């Protein structure tokens, strides 16, 4: 590792406390959070309220219905956030919202609320990149200094490292995101979407015993997941597959259970994620890993990453479901950091972008 000159932090301590409201709705989670940046430079979570749009088992969530859910719940969630924080809109310095990436209609429904509040209360808007939100909240909560970030959710799968005011993408999925892969399989075997399909896959996997062969597809720093999803789905038409095995079957016969498939899928997919993360760590010489995004809640993934990290004398940082899963507070955090560096989003530019790459953001607040 080359020595680094200590650069001065561009983000100076605030002269007074700052408060930001963050609004998130890029997928099926609607979140509002309020963060405070105190004069000593510390951040505190004043409130973090969320409501999730849950569909019946076997169904995914569609943009139009999701947007409708967000419209229905926006005011309640925001009011609760303000109440829990014990502050009023007039105390807020800026209104942060998710500019992207994400699903079009849901993003826009939340952006509309943000704009309206901005006009009503005469507060500046700050458009935030959803992924940067995850990263900044992860850093804040865990205290990780300069980790390799594994960002894994329903919509994103990236390995990121910070370099010169940019969150560089080292590796990513070449097709679908890991959360998407897991969620879609959960629906194939009809697992409940409550609280989330990913959570239920994780529980189901714990009961699995067989590791079935599945295609392992990393390509250097990248990975491909559509093949493994197809292959896992294919096992459900195998004659050994039993959707609802009896106790006898479980004890004796050569069968494949949904638990076995969940187990095999997780073990293989997570091994791929750990591998590309390790490659990035070796490449840049980092000893820290920060896992963010909804799939980051998965304890098996955390465990595997931990084994890899400790073999390298490193450390894994992860947050709990308050912060891994999409939330408004992360948008407030990243937004307020931007705002304090002088960044705002004029109304005319307060659009949404379904495709908004993490590395397009100028990370002005870091050296």
């Amino acid at each position, binding site marked *: *590792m*080359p020595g680094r000159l200590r650069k001065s932090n561009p983000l100076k301590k605030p002269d007074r406390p700052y408060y930001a409201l963050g609004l998130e709705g*890029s*997928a099926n989670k609607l979140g509002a959070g309020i963060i405070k940046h105190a004069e000593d430079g510390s951040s505190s979570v004043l409130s973090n309220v969320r409501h999730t749009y849950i569909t019946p088992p076997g169904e995914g969530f569609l943009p139009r219905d999701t947007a409708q859910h967000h419209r229905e719940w926006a005011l309640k969630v925001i009011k609760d956030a303000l109440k829990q924080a014990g502050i009023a809109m007039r105390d807020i310095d800026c209104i942060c919202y998710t500019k*992207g*990436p*994400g*699903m*079009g209609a849901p*993003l826009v429904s939340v952006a509309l609320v943000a704009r309206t509040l901005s006009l009503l209360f005469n507060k500046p808007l700050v458009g935030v990149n*959803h992924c940067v939100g995850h990263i900044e909240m992860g850093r804040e909560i865990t205290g990780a200094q300069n980790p390799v970030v594994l960002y894994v959710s329903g*919509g*994103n799968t*990236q390995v990121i490292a910070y370099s010169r005011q940019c969150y560089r*993408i080292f590796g*990513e999925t*070449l097709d679908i995101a890991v959360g998407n892969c897991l969620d879609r399989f959960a629906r194939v075997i009809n697992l409940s979407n409550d609280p989330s399909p990913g959570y239920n896959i994780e529980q189901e996997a714990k009961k699995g015993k067989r*590791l079935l*062969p599945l295609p*392992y597809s990393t*390509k*250097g720093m*990248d990975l491909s997941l559509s093949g493994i999803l197809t292959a896992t789905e294919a096992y459900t038409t195998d004659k050994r597959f039993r959707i609802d095995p009896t106790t006898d079957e479980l004890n004796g016969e050569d069968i494949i259970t949904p638990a076995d498939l969940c187990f095999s899928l997780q*073990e*293989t997919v997570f*091994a791929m994620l*750990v*591998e590309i993360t*390790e*490659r990035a*760590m*070796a*490449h*840049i*010489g980092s000893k820290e890993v920060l896992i963010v995004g909804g799939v980051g809640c998965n304890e098996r993934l955390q465990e*595997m*990453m931990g*084994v*890899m990290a400790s*073999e390298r004398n490193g450390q894994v940082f992860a947050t709990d479901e308050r912060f891994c899963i999409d939330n408004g507070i992360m948008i407030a955090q990243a937004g307020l950091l931007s705002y304090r560096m002088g960044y705002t989003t004029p109304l005319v530019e307060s659009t949404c972008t*379904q*495709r*908004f*790459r*993490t*590395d397009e953001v100028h990370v002005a607040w870091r050296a």
Partner: protein
Amino acid sequence: MSPTTPLNPTSPPTLTLISNSTPVAQGAEAKVYKSILHPSREGSPVSIFVKYRFTKQYRHPTLDTNLTRARVAGEARALMKCLRSGVNVPGIRMVDASEGVLGTEWIEGKSVRALLGGGADDEGDDDELLEDGQDTQELLEEDTLKPFGLSQDTLMSMIGTEIAKMHLADVIHGDLTTSNMMLPFPSPSHLTLLYLVDFGLSFTSPLTEDKAVDLYVLERAFSSTHPDSSALFARVLDAYAKRVGEKEWGVVGRRLDDVRLRGRKRSMVG
């Protein structure tokens, strides 16, 4: 060489071989060693390069075994394909897939990275070198090449030509950097050839996209490890274009432009 370790009857022979070998480096995936396979008394013993893909504890054991075996096999097959197609790559000397080990021809020489000098942002190597067989980088660029009797331009052409031959065989290297290219020290008995090494991330593909990305990875490696090297890299592409022919270069070159514009990869979807 370390003294011979007493024979452990339960230890696999390849692991015993490794324990008696000289460590060279360790990467994320594998440890590499200098070793002697056939310690004959006649003539001087010939060294080989041993790459050991050790067990990854985080992986399920079955997955680990299968994956390691598949990777050793894949690397060996890529090398074989290159050899038959005339790409200068190290020959294969020993394969023990169940232990995750690949033995190849030892190339005594310098990496192109060392020859070009670096010292810029260290984004190249993922290996920590354990030995002091380090290449000194204080030497001026031209001086380092002098013993090899080559100019930088010639070296760049050789690189472009080798990659072209490799791509013509539909082999994608997957990790083209100047650390993975070697010049053997000159000798009266053989020509100085440019070798491509470390095919651990390689795969077979006829796709233009994969070839363009292969070149793009090298371009990025050049610019981050050897600043002011765009003129040099242009030479590499010239030689590549010449070797693959106008038609193929038309296709790959255009795709390379696209890849450059895209930056890293395709745009994300939310």
